[in-house]
């Protein structure tokens, strides 16, 4: 039972390694192996979710393998409510992404190796409890994306005047810049705190105030690059636009969430004083995310750019939720990461479906598609409704929580931020509904008469699965909020509300003033 989590995380990487070692030219076998790996790890994740003890707040299913004794580093996996939710997200999206990758017909082997490596990189970061492996998996997720976009992507020429090679290089450099910035902060935490174990750092170590003040911006902006924090977001819409369908799904759906997860898991609980100091700045930047990216999305004509900017805008809500530093807001942020992840993946999958046939995703060129591809049209309308935060979808519950948390925070900055964020919903609804109205409804254009809808069960399944996840959580958000709230309350927010003096009195080792270990 203990090792199940480790298996779920490492299975895709092992499958990638098997593909790497065994020279097979049979695309069916390669695909079957990839489906098996992601499918089994989804099943294991679901089993873990079902047996997750909802009354406990700490890490569960902890499994540890000693790795580097000289650094005190071990390959340690374990999940609490926050990471359980996000692992579930990775499971769904990587499986659906593999299903949808049937459109790839060129160099399949390399494609699946990279895709599976990417999957482990992401789920490893969510599940690890060791600072070194957190960084290891985090970086592992960056490079496969370079090749996935560069080799299988496509970027139609447009006003942006860029090629896919430019897009993928920009993405890689931005993410690496963020990663090394975060690395310096993490190493600072390691040397001041004296351990790589995240759980110990969270509960037993209280870092000196000086360290917290400089390390927090390192982590915030370092992870912020990946979470597309304004003004470091410009890589993101371009990267999505150029990526192949499954890669956009993974990226918008889960990879981007790694940034926000890094802030919630490490920056807030380990550096609470820093967090309090920098929270207002984060809230202001989050508002820029919501409104600036929202308005940019209004002017976009390419479907993928619309969704790309929309996802930057939605990350603004996540970051605003984090900035509130209270249970309601952070819980909302985590739930929104799940909801938006599924929604973004669904939208990119749908765009991929018709783009694969039309080779055109320019919104004004498409018209009345719903007549020819009703199933895709219905799914798209539902995704758009989810994105605009209609009740019944997971996004509604999470956005409401973020607004409540932000308003509850009480200061003038957050009151204004809440108003901006609510206004952002209107902007979202405008560009999303406009795009879907133009391309799926209205007069049918004869040049699209060759389009084929998803008819067989196998074609429909990935979309249905993602929609089902959105609706289930939408109607029963407590499935996730219960476990998220508990973990947020005990391991994130409790540290934020205590001051250094009380903390020093209550835990064992603790007031570590900056001596080297």
């Amino acid at each position: 039972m203990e090792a199940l989590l480790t298996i779920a995380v490492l299975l895709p990487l092992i499958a990638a390694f098997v593909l790497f070692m065994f020279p097979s030219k049979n695309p069916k076998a390669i695909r079957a192996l990839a489906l098996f790996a992601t499918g089994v790890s989804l099943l294991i994740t679901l089993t873990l979710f079902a047996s997750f003890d909802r009354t406990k707040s700490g890490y569960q299913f902890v499994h540890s393998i000693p790795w580097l004794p000289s650094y005190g580093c071990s390959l340690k996996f374990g999940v609490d409510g926050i990471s359980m939710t996000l692992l579930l997200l990775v499971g769904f999206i990587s499986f659906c992404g593999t299903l949808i990758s049937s459109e790839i017909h060129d160099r399949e082997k390399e494609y699946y190796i990279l895709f599976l490596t990417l999957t482990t990189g992401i789920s490893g970061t969510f599940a690890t409890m060791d600072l070194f492996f957190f960084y290891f998996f985090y970086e592992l997720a960056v490079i496969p994306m370079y090749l996935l976009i560069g080799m299988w992507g496509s970027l139609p020429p447009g006003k942006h005047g860029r090629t896919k090679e430019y897009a993928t290089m920009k993405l890689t450099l931005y993410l690496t810049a963020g990663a090394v910035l975060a690395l310096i902060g993490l190493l600072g935490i390691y040397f001041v705190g004296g351990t790589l174990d995240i759980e110990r750092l969270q509960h037993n170590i209280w870092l000196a105030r000086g360290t917290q003040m400089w390390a927090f911006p390192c982590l915030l902006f370092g992870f912020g690059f990946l979470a597309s924090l304004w003004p470091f977001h410009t890589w993101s819409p371009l990267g999505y636009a150029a990526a192949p369908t499954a890669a956009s799904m993974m990226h918008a759906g889960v990879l981007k969430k790694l940034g926000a997860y890094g802030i919630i898991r490490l920056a807030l609980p380990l550096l609470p004083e820093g967090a309090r100091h920098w929270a207002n700045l984060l809230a202001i930047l989050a508002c820029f995310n919501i409104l600036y990216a929202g308005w940019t999305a209004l002017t976009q004509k390419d479907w993928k750019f619309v969704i790309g900017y929309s996802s930057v805008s939605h990350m603004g809500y996540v970051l605003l939720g984090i900035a509130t530093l209270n249970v309601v807001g952070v819980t909302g942020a985590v739930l929104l990461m799940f909801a938006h992840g599924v929604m973004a993946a669904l939208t990119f999958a749908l765009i991929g479906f018709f783009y694969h046939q039309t080779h055109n995703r320019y919104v004004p060129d498409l018209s009345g598609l719903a007549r020819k591809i009703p199933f895709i049209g219905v799914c798209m309308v539902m995704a758009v409704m989810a994105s605009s935060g209609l009740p019944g979808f997971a996004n509604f519950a999470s956005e409401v929580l973020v607004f409540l948390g932000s308003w509850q925070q009480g200061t003038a900055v957050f009151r204004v931020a809440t108003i901006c964020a609510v206004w952002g919903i209107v902007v979202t609804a405008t560009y999303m509904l406009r795009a879907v109205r133009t391309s799926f409804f209205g007069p049918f254009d004869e040049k699209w008469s060759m389009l084929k809808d998803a008819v067989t069960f196998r074609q429909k399944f990935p979309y249905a699965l993602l929609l089902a996840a959105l609706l289930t959580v939408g109607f029963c958000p407590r499935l996730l909020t219960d476990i998220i709230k508990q973990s947020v309350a005990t391991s994130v927010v409790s540290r934020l509300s205590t001051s250094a003096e009380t903390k020093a009195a209550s835990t064992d080792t603790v007031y570590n003033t900056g001596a080297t270990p």
Partner: protein
Amino acid sequence: MMGLYAIQLECLVATWGIVLLLVDAFTPIPNKRLVGYLAAGFVAVALLYSFAIQPIDEPFFHGMFRLDPFALYFKRLFLLALAVVLLMAAEFSPRLESGVVEFYALLMFCAVGMLLIASVNDFILLFVSLELVTITFYVLASYLRRQLPSLEAGTKYLILGALSSGFTVYGIAYIFGTTGTTNFTTLNAQLSASNVQPTAAFTFGMLLVLTGLGFKIASVPFQVWAPDVYQGAPTPVTAFLAVGSKAAGFALLLRVLYAGLLPVSMVWNALIAVLAGATLLYGNLGAIPQRNIKRLMGYSSIGHAGYMLMGVAAVNALGAGAVLFYLGQYAFTNLCAFLAIVAVTAATGSDEIPSFSGLGKRSPILGLALFLSMMSLAGIPPLSGFFGKFQLFAAVVQRAQTDRFYYVLAAIGAAAVVISLYFYLGVGRAIYLQEAEDASPIAISKPMRFGLYVCMAAMIGIGIFQRPLVHASIMAAKIFPLR
């Protein structure tokens, strides 16, 4: 007798080099390639044998020579590099007009100098072994004697190398003049006993010695030779410069600074840190506009000297271990890259980066090998370069806990990582993202394939299971009294 035990590896390689010269007289020309494979195989056996040698605490030859874990670590590293470079040289031999076996023999004599360098504990032996390495490299770099770039490389290396040797010996004279000793152990004892600021003359001598060593490792401001020599020299020689000569330079630097001059670390510490920052920026920024892959590797090697100088500048146990680990994995990574470069240039006749276009389709294994080694150089997990850089950054940040100035160095290093990713991915883009004009497959020989597999397995293996090499490097670095 014990003295002979200590230098058995040196004797073995030197004897085999002489035997090779004899064998040459009886070998018909078509078989010369085979001699190269044989030589490589022999060195590989010597490498395995070296694991049977036990380190010994006592110094040999009147304190000149040490066979401690540090020396053995480097000896194994040099033998590994020599074995792969000989393999490369055998592949490269059709492009040498004459003197094929002499080429192998010179490589082996050069390696003897490196093996001695690993054990140096005295400035006199330092100078002698350094010259043995440098002088053989003058010949090796200009071995393609009808090609102007190769001659240019040899001449440049000769002029600058001779100058820096002059500096070194002049500096040694100053150190001897002010302290009366050339032995590192005695020097260390004297410096820590005297407890006063070193005299100006001593500092001057120290700086001159560092100049000579800075030339070997290609650090700023003695780096200008590297790109030209890397580009012009025959590719196996370039590989040996990048792996062997660089490691030898760092072995000397660590010995001199940590075994000899540690008590006066306040004098050289800031200097090394500043040089590290400057080297990082020069190497990585200079590599951006390069279109020739060997020239790119030249700039990249300057950049990597900068990373390792970060570890040297940290002056802590973590840093010393990190430099050793880095050199170990850097050897596999660079050898892998150069093996691939030799194979591709043999087929295409060009070492411009555009001629690597579509390599991923022309030869999946060469494409993969070159791509993986570029990513390892850039420090991407799960490859070995990632953990190497992680340790170096860790060492600098640890030092920064007491000395805030080091955060600047860490920040420069971070910027360098991002810059380097740009040009390494430039090679990656040619391999996988661009189409070849001539899409004919590239054939590679069996020994070559074997060498590539070994290097790739090592890169991935060390990257994931770091423990054995970390353990070895920590053991080797323990000989220095660092905390």
